[in-house]
């Protein structure tokens, strides 16, 4: 067992847990062991309260009225943008675009950068690990432009083949779009190295950071990517709000995507002029409450400390891996040396869906299915896996609860 000097003491975790109302409830007569954080993490009271405070006291439309509530709503909304900038160390708030989530962020890039830069025969490079949200927007773009999608292979551990990636980059490669962390397997890519290879060749780089942002400090300037996308609900914030970071030099060259509302300066029937960055990409009244909640989540994360989170999650990953491997017939899918705090697995003779139902009856929430990464499942010739994914508030006791529930499932079904 890895014992880290920075490990969060148990009492400390209990104090943090107490801030999450959902973690205090019972499910099917058991204490809830919430181990589906890679899908959505729970929200601390600080986030819930910030959203409620906005809704109770400041709710109004942004960038519009001269009245007090509108000014307060605008200040809260733009304040959240400032928090996001600091959180990922973007150079400017003009580079922070609020979107519904990672999926919308990638679609935005595909529909702006993609449609203006691609010619028939050009190539977009992704990896075998991608979530469907980082596959399908590019497939749609390929259909529209005649570009081709190229896929970097992975090995049996779930590691993306860096040499194959380098070999795939050619004169026709215009966009590279990669997951920073695989949602299905947990593989962490050395994303900086992947970005550097593409940048050296003048290729635009997009990073799906949905699974990375909750677990490690992200510095988009250090990474050097052109775009970095992530979602609020995986980082202790609400659903329906996410962020597209875009390097200003690139964003400034892009046409708008959706039209209407905030993205406009002036409209006449002859000509419309567009707003400046970042609002040019925020058509319509935005998810103000969501942005406020995301801002609160960022404050909360800053208070806890990303290094502390990473250390605790690394300890949970090591503990869970060791404990799960004691279960006869259990196979861990995804064994990359650098993994985020999640374990995908199968149990001989029991379908993941049956595991999921038995675990739920024991109060243990895991994800079962293809994790919106069907090519990954295909690669391992599996219809589905069960996936347990950890957050700051998870404990060894919950991993023991998972272990006991799996043992019960095997007793019942095998």
């Amino acid at each position, binding site marked *: 067992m890895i014992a880290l000097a920075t490990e969060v003491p148990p009492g400390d975790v209990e104090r943090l847990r107490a801030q999450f109302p959902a973690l205090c409830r019972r499910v099917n007569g058991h204490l809830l062991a919430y181990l589906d954080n890679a899908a959505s993490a729970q929200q601390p009271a600080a986030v819930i309260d910030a959203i409620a405070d906005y809704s109770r006291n400041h709710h109004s439309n942004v960038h519009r009225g001269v009245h007090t509530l509108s000014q307060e709503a605008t200040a809260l909304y733009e304040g959240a943008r400032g928090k996001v900038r600091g959180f990922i160390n973007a150079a400017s708030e003009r580079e922070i675009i609020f979107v519904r989530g990672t999926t919308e962020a990638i679609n935005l890039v595909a529909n702006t950068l993609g449609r203006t830069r691609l010619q028939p025969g050009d190539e977009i490079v992704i990896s075998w690990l991608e979530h469907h949200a980082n596959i399908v927007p590019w497939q749609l773009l390929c259909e529209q432009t005649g570009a081709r999608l190229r896929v970097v292979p992975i090995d049996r551990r779930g590691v993306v083949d860096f040499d194959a990636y380098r070999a795939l980059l050619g004169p026709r490669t215009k966009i590279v779009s990669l997951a920073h962390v695989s949602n299905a397997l947990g593989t962490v890519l050395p994303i900086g190295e992947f970005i550097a290879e593409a940048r050296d060749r003048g290729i635009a780089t997009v990073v799906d950071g949905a699974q990375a942002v909750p677990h490690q400090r992200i510095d988009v300037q250090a990474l050097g990517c052109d775009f970095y996308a992530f979602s609020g609900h995986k980082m202790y914030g609400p659903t329906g709000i996410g962020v597209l970071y875009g390097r200003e030099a690139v964003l400034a060259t892009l046409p708008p995507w959706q039209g209407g509302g905030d993205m406009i300066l002036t409209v006449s029937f002859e000509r419309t002029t567009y707003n400046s960055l970042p609002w040019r990409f925020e058509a319509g009244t935005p998810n103000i409450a969501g942005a406020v909640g995301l801002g609160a989540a960022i404050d909360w994360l800053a208070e806890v400390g990303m290094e502390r989170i990473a250390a605790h999650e690394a300890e949970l990953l090591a503990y869970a891996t060791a404990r799960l491997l004691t279960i006869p017939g259990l196979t861990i899918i995804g064994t990359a040396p650098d993994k985020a705090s999640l374990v995908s697995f199968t149990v001989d003779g029991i*379908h993941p*869906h049956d595991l999921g*139902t038995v675990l739920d*009856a024991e109060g243990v929430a895991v994800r079962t299915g293809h994790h919106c990464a069907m090519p990954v*499942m295909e690669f391992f010739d*599996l*219809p589905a896996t069960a996936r347990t994914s950890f957050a700051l508030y998870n404990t060894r006791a919950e991993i023991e609860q998972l272990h006991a529930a799996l043992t019960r499932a095997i007793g*019942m*079904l095998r």
Partner: protein
Amino acid sequence: MDLADLYRDVIVDHNRNPRNRGRLPQPSHSAEGNNPLCGDQLRVTLEVSDGVLRDIRCEGRGCAISTASASLMSEAVKGHSLAEVAGLFGQVHQMLTSHDAVPGPDLGKLAALSGVREFPARVKCASLCWHTLNAALAGDAAPVSTE
């Protein structure tokens, strides 16, 4: 919510040892069914003549509920007229979806699936084989999907 009500002995048995497993070499009817949520895939092949379902095989991969349901279905429909099969489908559908339905005597062992309705996420697992059977009888070329 009682797991023992879902994974009854009959279901566990039919999952471990599915009946009428495989594929008929020259079926008169055949269809494929998918449950995208679970990744379940099922192929149902039939031998139908003179309005009677004379033989059936089910092949695929799926969870315990889906595997057991296909196995139980294959036993229940084999040798029955298409009218009787349609009647059974109606009763199974009723049992899986309606809360107060009491499984009728015709259902026999299929009644073991009545616990599934307490687990809404799993109803599709139990109904996939029946929808696939219907598609095969209707001569549908496109695979059926539970989504």
